[in-house]
């Protein structure tokens, strides 16, 4: 299933089991960044419009009032530029809102969560990564390093790992429909790879083109079914019966 070897972070735990967490590449990073940027943008748009709704004469308001307002404005701009990232990463366990949406997380190179210092380093060096424009330095660094780290990550000793949403239900889903299907006559045991192959077909089957669905189903039945001619004809009569048979075939393995 893992056709392209993707980089991973290998961690040796004290329990003597080695974890290997998938590293987030440039796509995830960019998307998470754009989401965060969008959040900050929306924040300022909302702040601006609320402000202009409350105050009719904006320019006069700024000139007239506003030691406090101007201070708040300057501090606000500063906070969105520098503090937002570190505060979010420290408070949300290594995730900014954008990273949480994309399912990626900042961790140290030993797999442990980031602290204030690491997060501060990687986000202060953001200013160098964004040089000379559109994060050219950071993008180069992400593309060229093995674990896709930008300069800030290199200096902080951090990287981004992916958190996938993995559905285990497919392993335990009950056999649907009490159709009288022929059972395998001379079946051999399925290996873990075979089970995985059949299950991933069953998960995707509803979204496949009808022709492709039938073709793949037939192939799997012929490969793993162990049926005689008559049984195969019954099973292959419809997509439902094909898939119900395959599911039953996997379930029989327990």
């Amino acid at each position, binding site marked *: 299933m893992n056709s392209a070897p993707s980089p991973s972070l290998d961690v040796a735990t004290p329990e003597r089991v080695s*974890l290997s967490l998938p590293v987030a590449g440039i796509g995830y990073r960019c998307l998470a960044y754009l989401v965060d940027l969008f959040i900050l943008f929306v924040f300022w748009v909302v702040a601006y419009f609320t402000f202009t709704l409350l105050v009719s004469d904006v320019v006069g308001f700024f000139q007239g009032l506003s030691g406090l307002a101007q201070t708040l404005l300057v501090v606000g701009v500063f906070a969105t530029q520098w503090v937002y990232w570190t505060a979010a990463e420290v408070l949300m366990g290594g995730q900014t809102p954008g990273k949480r949406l994309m399912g990626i997380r900042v961790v140290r190179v030993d797999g442990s969560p980031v602290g204030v210092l690491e997060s*501060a380093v990687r986000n202060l060096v953001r200013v160098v990564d964004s040089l000379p424009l559109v994060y050219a330095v950071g993008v180069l660094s992400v593309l060229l390093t093995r674990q896709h780290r930008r300069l800030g990550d290199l200096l902080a000793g951090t990287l981004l790992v992916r958190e996938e949403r993995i559905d285990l239900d497919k392993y335990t889903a009950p056999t649907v429909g009490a159709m009288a299907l022929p059972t395998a006559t001379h079946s051999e045991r399925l290996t873990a790879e075979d*089970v995985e192959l059949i299950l991933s077909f069953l998960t995707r089957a509803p979204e496949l083109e009808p022709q492709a669905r039938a073709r793949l189903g037939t192939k799997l039945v012929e490969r793993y079914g162990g049926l005689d001619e008559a049984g195969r004809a019954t099973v292959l009569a419809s997509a439902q019966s094909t898939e119900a048979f395959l599911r039953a075939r996997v379930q029989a393995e*327990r």
Partner: protein
Amino acid sequence: MAAPLPAFVTRRRPDWDALKELLDRQRAGTLRLGELRTLDVLYRRAAADLAHAQTFYAGTDVHRFLNQLCGQAYATIYQPPRERLASTLAFFRQDFPRTLRANGAFVAASAGLFLLGILLGAVVVLLEPRGAELLVPEHLRDFIARKEMWTDGILTVSPPNAVASGIATNNLTVTIVTFASGILLGLGTVFVLINNGVHLGSVAALCVHEGMGAKLFDFIAAHGPVELSIIVIAGGAGLMVGQALVDPGELPRGQALALRGREAVKLVLGCAPFLALIAVVEGFVSPGDFFSSWVKATLGLALGGFFWLYLLRAGRDAPGPTPVG
């Protein structure tokens, strides 16, 4: 012989779901003390399952799932100590000044580069006044030609606290850039330091040349010592990073960098509140002639003196681990 995959999942899944739920509760902060033992047991079982999956079901979704589950549990169980208020205090009482003293050589080198820049700028302008056209920005030259300080106007445009916050953020940005550009083999920091030095030196020399030295001194005296110290310290932090890249010593470059980065950022974070304080001085005291030059100079020297006294003395006697240098 391993059990078939579906049977393995069906048998072990309740434990995994329970572990996942406990981890969610831990993140939400509703975990009870008694459940910690369960969490520990479940984590160990999941780790054993992961080892099993690595051997018999490598590359399947179950393997990936267990990897991720154990990763999350590992991160939860082996958390670094939380930074709290007490540790913030300890940071300013001991950690920050100690880190600075341990890396004094870098700060000294940074000060040297900065002074070099000032001398360069000043000598060029004093020997060849037309050099100012190259080194001093045009809007400043216009002000100086009219024998005015460009800082006279700022308080008539906006109130002092707005000026102060503007200055604080501006200075923080300069500090951050000085530190962060150290990742470019230290060359970025060297450039920023010399560039700022040349800028300051040439402006000062031009002011003196045009007979406005006293006015410039009047503006700079109160906040100058601390502000320039902080730029120099940030430069030291940047040079630390650069040195780790150029000469990582016995460690691999990546490790040396990460180790040095943690130390160096302490200098920048430690400077931040002082930078905010000094911006208040620069916004409220420095502009205008409400305070006389001598009051400003005394204040500036006192602040600078206290700052360095703090940096050189604080945390010297107190027990505690010495920072890794």
